[in-house]
């Protein structure tokens, strides 16, 4: 109970729980869309999803400043590539929050004459760019880890052992590909934070891809990916060692 209280006291903790609920509702609505006897349940889920979405927009009102502060911090990182990726990601995140705030003001009626569709597309574009930057950072970190691992003698012994013990696999699959995959999987296994972050960003990527029409999936896929990324986010918040640094 104490851990639950500490978790929900963090603004991010509550937001992730609400996000998980929102996407769980979206997934459930998609799965139940064809059953006629559950129409009132579907209506309730739609109402819950709308409430969560509207509520989350209100909480996010101050997050632009958070992102700008994060961008200022990442500009000072020692690793140039890392600093560039993260600063670009944070700036795009800040722009996304500005668009989101404008959409919130439109939805409550404070601002009337803005084009909701255009601002919504802009918000999705900024979110997409920030996710691409985060994925670039993930790929860069994974490449660094793999390069580090290749230099490690102990690992090279392990790889040779792996390659020699499955001769029939080596014949079927190209040996370099097999070695590369083995290296990749070993690097990810030794650094679960990076693996989780990559998985989270890939799941998140489907949401703006669908919204912008680049890769049209359906509402079920979007709901499932959103739910997965929210659950991973909750996991990284409860176990801080699983959170990627910086």
């Amino acid at each position, binding site marked *: 109970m104490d851990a639950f209280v500490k978790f929900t006291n963090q603004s991010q903790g509550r937001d992730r729980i609400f996000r998980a609920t929102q996407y769980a509702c979206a997934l459930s609505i998609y799965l139940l869309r064809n059953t006629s006897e559950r129409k009132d349940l579907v209506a309730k889920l739609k109402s819950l999803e709308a409430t969560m979405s509207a*509520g989350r927009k209100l909480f996010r009102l101050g997050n632009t400043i958070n992102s700008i502060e994060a961008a200022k911090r990442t500009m000072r990182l020692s690793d140039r590539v890392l600093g560039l990726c993260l600063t670009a990601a944070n700036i795009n995140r800040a722009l996304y929050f500005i668009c989101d705030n404008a959409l919130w003001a439109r939805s409550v009626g404070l601002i009337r004459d803005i084009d909701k569709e255009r601002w919504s597309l802009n918000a999705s574009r900024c979110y997409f760019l920030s996710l691409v930057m985060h994925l670039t950072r993930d790929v860069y970190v994974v490449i660094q880890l793999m390069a580090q691992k290749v230099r490690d003698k102990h690992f090279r012994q392990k790889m040779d052992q792996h390659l020699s013990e499955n001769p029939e696999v080596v014949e079927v699959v190209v040996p370099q590909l097999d070695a590369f995959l083995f290296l990749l999987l070993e690097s990810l296994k030794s650094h679960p934070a990076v693996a989780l972050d990559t998985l989270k960003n890939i799941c998140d990527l489907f949401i703006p891809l669908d919204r912008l029409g680049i890769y049209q999936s359906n509402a079920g896929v979007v709901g499932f990916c959103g739910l997965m990324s929210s659950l991973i986010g909750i996991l990284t918040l409860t176990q801080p060692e699983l959170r990627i640094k910086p």
Partner: protein
Amino acid sequence: MDSWVRFNAQSQAKERVIRAAQYACTLLGYTLKKGGAAAELHKTISQLEAHMSLTRKLLRLGNSVEALEAAKRAIHLSDSVLRLCLTISHLNKAMYFACDNVLWAGKTGLISKLDQQKWSQRSFRYYLFALILNLTRDVYELRLLLESEERYRASKSPPSPYPSTTLPADSLSSSSSSPAAPATITLPVMSAWLSRRLHLLGMVLYNNPPLLLDLLKNSCDIFIPLDRLGIYPTGQGFVGACGLASSILSILTIINPWLKLKP
């Protein structure tokens, strides 16, 4: 900027800011209605207020657990009056949050047939009990501080002959004079005593800003359930002003944690 990030990271802080904005909308709606502004603007403000109220209910979804944890902690206090007041106050708050969660479920359509009026009244009743207990605790702490301050003053300066000699002199003179005189003579005595007490009270409160803030906050807050339950209806404007004032005071205690009344 950095302090804003730290402030924002606390869930409670955001909820307080939204509460301040909600009651500011209530106050604004009242002044607009009085000033005869456009119905469109008034509708926007009341819609915004309803949206903020519903979102705050969403934010408060986990607070029953928090209040129960606080009640569990309060049971271990050494002072029996404080222990009683705080434990029952936290339990009432937990019940208030539970009723609030049910209201949220009703408003979002999760529970279809909910008597919103009944549950709303129930939640305000629990809130009122919690506030009364908080005020009792404030008055108790104030009394303790006043007593200790008086004892300190009495020990610091030896009892001066001036007030004690004038009193018997007055009573001696009053006993010889007509029966109507005692009423007129005790009045300045009473007002001197009252002004001395008020001065002492003011000094104690000035030296203990957490107690002063908590007392002011609870006094402002109590008008909200009193109005909503119909016990002491004051009107939208006054409720909005009280709500806004208490929200600003609680934001102050979050920004400066030393201003929070312990325990």
